[in-house]
Structure formats: structure tokens, C-alpha cells
């Protein structure tokens, strides 16, 4: 008998949503001791299913048909009190963002202890502490005695996710629901967490429902795959069969959208350098308290790079590597401590206000978060045309330019009079690109510009950028944490770690023959690498391991 069976599940959205049913007649089963991956783009209803299992659907969203069977009971018709005893004991859940899922004002050990105590109120304090430390060791947190007394903000993203997992395991659940648990993490941390979930699942014999949009992750951990699109299952089956020979075109599209499978660009340009960064240093100092020494974070440590005209240079690194600070320092949104930035040989740091304005016109930036990089109170057209107007174009002229760019990025002129909230993340990113290009720049800085997007949308935006670059002869500084994306678009790649450049090479050489151990680590951590290598027939993301 299967552990969890979802039968003909339909979940209705409130009136006025983009569709009537968030989830429409979904069937799937989770066997004991198996990992089932629910994969789909954002808006496919995958999180809704997870929340429905635990009775955590948001207000106004209701299951309207079907059953969710777990241990012979229908979870949809369970009384609230019964559901409470089930949550955390029979079924546990881990979330995408471990920082917001933990109470910031409570020590993590207490939070895990609380999870134990809720389902076992009589547990004596000493046993409780021992249990918490045992759980910490189990999820790979070394030094549990010290970490137990830490607050969430003192831990790294990976450690916080481990704490979340410890909390979920507190009562040895039979089913673990993981809702995009690695999406907010760095590649190497993601690799560790995936390995941990897989190992725990095997040793504890749990069923796991793993929700993700990244088919690379699916290839790494799934036993069974359910592909969702617009609330409906388009295909499901054993992971091996389904991924090797997808029957549905949508699954095929998801597989094809995974970046970094083409051959990397090779050959270096001999054009004049457009932008040079010389011996750049930046240290952030935050005071922590009266007695404690201030915390110093090195964001740039003697950074040296050159970007030639027409070249795309990718800067790759994990969070905290200083790659975003580098982008902001290039535009002087953050002032470096020392060092020089040269734009066509002119020192950017010595520019006066007028010169800096002209420089920023030539070097435009597209930011990471499509939700916060557009003014929510301005119509799209207005947001775009303010740039040209600030440089002396008439409003009518600027509006014409704005419409042209909206057409060019594939949104059409009717987007001009609409507000940002009417657009999806991918569309917003297109708008941001239009806004940057409306000023006719020579350099485009993309600061994690595709990181917040679904894989399929990501590939569309990357395509757009590559097309625009070819048409306009743009140079690009492309900041990303994802080696696959860098491989897709870059001529040359710089790998940064803790503010230092550890490796700098042409894309072909870097992937073919990485010299630095950190680069090799990053390459090894790419999700689904083994699968895609096998699928391509030749090892494409080659690292030192092959």
C-alpha cells in the first residue's frame, strides 16, 4: 500500500485569479521509502498540493474535489485537532527560505526542542537536550552543543536549512514534504543538502515529496517524477524512464531549458578594453556591540579584471563572494576603499557629477530581483522614458523609444500603459532590460538578472540578451552564481570566492580544464550534472572528476 495517495485532487482559487482551479484533477502516489519529485514552473500549483496535504492552504483557496489518503485516512476531511497532531509527527515540511521559516528571536536549539515537546509534552529537559543534539548530528551540524545556542541569523543558509530539517525529523515523520528547499541556497550548499535529504530518506525509510522547478535537481534525487503544468499532471513515471525518454513536449521543453549544455564559447577578443578594474578593495565593517570586535567582511580583495569591447564577461561566485558588490562598485553605487576603475582609460572614481551621469548612461545595469527593481507606482512606459527624458529627449520622442524597446524585448507596445504588478517575473526582467537599453548603453551589467526566474523563462531571457548583444554590439558584465548560465552566455569567466578572484579564463578553457580546486567544487555541485552528461553522450560540464 502506498504511503500517500492523492486522488483527483482539485483546488479552487478565489474569484478573479488567473484561472479557476489551481490544481485540477491531480493523481499521484508516494510509496514508502521513495522520493517523488513534483516539478513545474512557478504558478503550476505544485506548492498548493504540498500545502493542501498539511491543511495549510491560504485563505480563500479551498480543495473542491478528490481525496488525499494517508494511513487510511482522508486528510481533506480531517478535523483541525486531528490535523494538528499529524503535522510534524506523521508528516513534516521544510520550506524554501530557512531564514524566514525560523523564529529570529529564539535560539535554534529551543526551536527544535519545541518541535519535540509539542508531540511529547512529558519529555524531561535532559532527554530533550540529548535528543536535539542527536538530531543536529544526524543532519550534519558539527558542534551541536554550541550551535544549539545560536540564533538563526548567526548561522549560514546551509546551516539554517539543516536546522529546519532537524526540526522536521524531530518526530520521525513517515512523510517529508520539501518545498523548494534548495532554491535559495548556493550550488555547493544545495549539493550538500540534496545529499543529506537523500541519505536521511534512505536511513529512516521516509517517503519524500520534493518540490522543485529545477529539473537538474530532479535528475539527482528523484525515484519518481510528476510533471505539473497549469495545475494538471502532464506526465508522471519512474525518474529514469521519464527523464531519458520524455513523452510530453512540455517535459522535453523543461529538459531543454536547462542552461549550460551548448558548447562554451572559445577564442578571445583582441579589441580595446572598455572597462578595467585595478587592485580594487572593499571591506564592509559592521559594529556588533560595545565590547565585541566589529565584524569585517571582505567584499573585494585586490580585484583585477578587464572587459573588452563586445565581450561578455561572467563573474561567478556563491553568496558572499563579493560579485554583486563588484557590479555596484563599477557603477559607483558602492564606493570602493581603494583601487581604480577605468572606463575607456578614464578613472571613474575621479569623475565629477556630470561625468558620472554620462558614464552611467553608457553603463546600464539590470538587477536581480524583478519584483523590487520596478517602481510599483509608475506605469511601465513612464519608468522607461524617464531615462531618455533625463538626458534631454522630449517626452514624445522618449515615449517612442520606450515603445520600440518594449517591442524589441518581446512585450509589445501595449505594455506601455500597464503597471508592473500585471507582469510575471520574466516579463518584468524584460522590462528592466528595455529600460536599460533605452539609454543606448555600451555596457550592460546583469546582476544575477536571471537567477530569480524559472529555468524555462531563464533560457528565454538569456536568448533575448544574446540576440540584443549581437545586434547592438553590447559588452556585458554578467554576474551569476550559476555556472550553467555563465557557460551559456560568457566569452570569459571569472570565479570569485570571498572577494578574491580565484580563476580567470576563457569559457572553453575554464570548463575544459579548471585549475583551481574551488572551481572544480563548483562544477561538481551543478545539479543534474551526471544525468545531463550521460544524456549528451559526452561529458559536457567537464570537471576534474571526469
Amino acid at each position: 500500500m502506498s504511503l500517500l495517495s492523492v486522488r483527483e485532487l482539485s483546488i479552487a482559487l478565489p474569484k478573479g485569479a488567473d484561472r479557476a482551479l489551481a490544481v485540477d484533477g491531480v493523481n499521484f502516489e508516494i510509496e514508502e521509502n521513495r522520493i517523488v519529485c513534483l516539478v513545474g514552473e512557478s504558478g503550476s500549483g505544485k506548492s498548493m498540493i504540498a500545502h493542501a496535504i498539511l491543511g495549510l492552504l491560504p485563505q480563500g483557496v479551498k480543495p473542491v474535489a478528490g481525496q488525499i489518503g494517508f494511513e487510511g485516512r482522508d486528510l481533506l476531511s480531517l478535523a483541525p485537532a486531528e490535523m494538528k497532531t499529524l503535522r510534524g509527527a506523521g508528516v513534516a515540511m521544510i520550506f524554501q527560505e530557512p531564514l524566514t521559516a525560523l523564529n529570529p528571536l529564539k535560539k535554534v536549539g529551543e526551536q527544535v526542542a519545541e518541535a519535540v515537546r509539542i508531540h511529547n509534552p512529558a519529555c524531561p529537559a535532559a532527554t530533550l537536550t540529548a535528543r536535539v543534539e542527536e538530531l543536529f548530528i544526524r543532519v550534519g551540524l558539527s558542534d551541536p552543543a554550541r550551535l544549539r545556542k545560536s540564533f538563526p541569523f548567526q548561522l549560514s543558509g546551509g546551516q539554517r536549512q539543516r536546522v529546519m530539517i532537524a526540526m522536521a525529523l524531530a518526530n520521525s515523520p513517515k512523510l517529508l514534504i520539501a518545498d523548494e528547499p534548495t532554491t535559495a541556497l548556493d550550488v555547493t550548499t544545495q549539493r550538500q543538502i540534496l545529499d543529506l535529504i537523500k541519505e536521511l530518506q534512505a536511513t529512516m525509510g521516509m517517503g519524500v515529496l520534493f518540490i522543485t522547478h529545477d529539473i537538474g535537481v530532479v535528475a539527482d534525487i528523484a525515484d519518481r517524477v510528476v510533471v505539473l503544468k497549469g495545475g494538471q499532471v502532464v506526465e508522471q513515471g519512474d525518474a529514469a524512464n521519464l527523464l531519458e525518454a520524455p513523452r510530453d513536449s512540455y517535459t522535453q521543453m523543461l529538459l531543454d531549458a536547462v542552461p549550460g549544455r551548448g558548447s562554451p564559447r572559445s577564442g578571445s577578443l583582441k579589441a580595446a578594453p572598455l572597462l578595467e578594474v585595478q587592485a580594487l578593495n572593499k571591506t564592509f565593517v559592521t559594529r556588533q556591540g560595545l565590547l565585541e570586535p566589529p565584524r569585517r567582511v571582505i567584499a573585494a580583495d585586490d580585484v583585477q579584471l578587464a572587459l573588452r569591447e563586445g565581450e561578455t564577461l561572467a563573474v561567478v561566485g556563491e553568496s558572499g563572494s563579493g560579485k554583486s558588490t563588484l557590479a555596484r562598485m563599477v557603477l559607483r553605487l558602492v564606493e570602493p576603499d581603494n583601487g581604480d576603475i577605468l572606463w575607456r582609460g578614464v578613472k571613474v572614481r575621479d569623475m565629477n557629477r556630470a561625468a558620472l551621469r554620462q558614464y552611467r548612461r553608457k553603463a546600464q545595469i539590470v538587477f536581480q530581483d524583478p519584483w523590487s527593481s520596478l517602481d510599483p507606482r509608475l506605469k511601465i512606459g513612464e519608468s522607461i522614458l524617464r531615462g531618455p527624458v533625463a538626458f534631454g529627449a522630449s517626452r514624445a520622442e522618449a515615449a517612442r523609444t520606450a515603445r520600440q524597446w518594449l517591442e524589441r524585448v518581446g512585450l509589445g507596445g501595449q505594455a506601455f500603459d500597464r503597471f508592473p504588478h500585471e507582469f510575471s517575473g520574466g516579463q518584468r526582467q524584460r522590462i528592466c532590460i528595455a529600460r536599460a537599453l533605452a539609454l543606448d548603453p555600451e555596457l550592460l551589467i546583469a546582476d544575477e538578472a536571471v537567477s530569480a526566474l524559472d529555468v524555462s523563462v531563464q533560457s528565454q531571457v538569456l536568448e533575448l540578451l544574446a540576440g540584443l548583444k549581437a545586434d547592438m554590439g553590447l559588452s556585458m558584465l554578467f554576474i551569476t552564481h550559476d555556472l550553467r548560465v555563465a557557460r551559456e552566455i560568457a566569452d570569459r569567466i571569472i570565479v570569485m570566492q570571498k572577494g578574491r578572484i580565484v580563476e580567470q579564463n576563457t569559457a572553453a578553457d575554464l570548463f575544459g580544464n579548471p585549475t583551481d580546486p574551488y572551481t572544480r567544487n563548483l562544477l561538481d555541485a551543478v545539479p543534474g550534472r551526471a544525468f545531463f552528461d550521460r544524456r549528451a553522450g559526452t561529458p559536457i560540464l567537464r570537471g576534474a572528476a571526469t
Partner: protein
Amino acid sequence: MNETLRTFLSRPAGIVGLTILGLVCVVALLAPVISPGSPWDMAGMPFARPGEGGMWLGSDTLGRDVAAGVIHGARVSLLIGVSSTLAALAIGVTMGAIAGFSGGIVDLIIVRVTEVFQTIPNFVLAILLVAILTPSLTTIILAIALVSWPPLARLTRAQVMSVSRREFVHAARCQGQSAVSVLVRHVLPNAISPIIVTGSLTVAAAILIEAALSFMGLGDPNHMSWGYMVGAGRTVIRQAWWMSVFPGLAILITVVAINLVGEALNDALNPRIARS
């Protein structure tokens, strides 16, 4: 904006508050029509009980009609409440926006100045200012504005600082827009909602300060006000309760109405509450 209005109207508090406030405004506007003549004139016997001699709220120690006083007092209270709040907003938002947007030494100086104002008890400072400047509508408005701006400045500063960090503000700077244009056209419109809410509550506070000043005899001697009536009736409150109770009720109702409107505004302007 439509969404905002709908949320506002879906709150009973908002509707009740707005209705009462609307009534008070109508009374204030139509005071010369509803109750012609000066409220300072004798209208009948002193100490007339409510209903006696055609005066439905009674008369005060000098035979002036309490109802006429309450009606005319609404004009002064609302005028002072609204104009002193506008003045306080002008000072507070400007100071706060400059401090939050420029940061550094400018921020430090403005914050220190704000703190100096906040350490002096509001009401004591207001009394002092009115006493020095001689009581009149203008000086009272000025005094109330000067004691009410610091909280608005601090709120604006915090809002501006948090909005400035968002990426669309960086994007606007990179587009080549001037600092003033970025502040006025991008930062402030996105920071203004909680300031409007606090502003509406400041109106209520201003009405109370005015009433307290008039109670202490520091009101404008040419204008009948609720605070003055409460103050004048206070000595005989045990013999003639109506002289201070009715103007007191008027203050209470108006302030409560403004607070209700403020609360509904808060819900309506907060996108997270408005959406649910």
C-alpha cells in the same frame, strides 16, 4: 486607488468615522446658517438647563447658548487641527526625507535636532510658545506644528531609508535622474502611505492640544472653541454639568472619528492587508 477605496469602505470603522467626521465638517461649514449671530452674545438667562428658554443644550454662566458655542467651536477645532497638521507634515516630511536620503552628517544633524525637540514635553513647549507669541489662531497653529513634527520626521526618515535601498531607486539613479527627482518622484510616493496614516492621527492630537491650550486660557480670545468652553464651565461643573460636558463630548466624538478614519486608512493603504 480603486482597490484602496474599496478596502477603506469595507471597514465599518472607516465608514462610521468618515460619517461622523463628515457631519462635524458640515456643522463647521454651515455654522453661521445653523446658528446665526455670534456665539459670544447672550441668548437668555444664565445657568439655563438644557431645553430651557429654547436653548437645547442650555446656557453658560453668562447666558451664552452652549449649542451655538459647540457649533462654532467646530470651525476652530477643525481649522487648527488640519492646518497645524499640514504645517507639521511640511516640516517633518522635508526634514525626514532629507535626512533619510542624504545620510551621513546631514542625517546625524537632523536626527539630533529631532531628538532635542522630542525630549521637551510637547505640551509644555506649546504653552511656552503660545505664551511668548501671544495667543492667536496663527500662533496656536504654529506652536502645535512645532511640537508635532518630530514623530513625522522620524517616520519619514525610516521609510525613505528603506525605500531608497530598493533596486528601482538604484535603477532610477542609473537612468541619470537627478537626486531631487529620484527622491520626489520615486522614493516619496512609495514611502507616503504610513505618513498619511500618522498624519491623520496627528490631526486628532492637534485638536486635543488646542483644546488643552484654550482650557488653560491660552486660546484665541476672538474665537469660540471647545477647549475654552470646557475651561470656562469647569468651575461650576457640579451645579451646571452641561456647560463642560457637551463641548467635551464634541471633542471626544471628533477625535474618535478621526482615529477610526486613520485606522481604516492604515488598512486600506497597507497592501498586505488590502489584498486579503
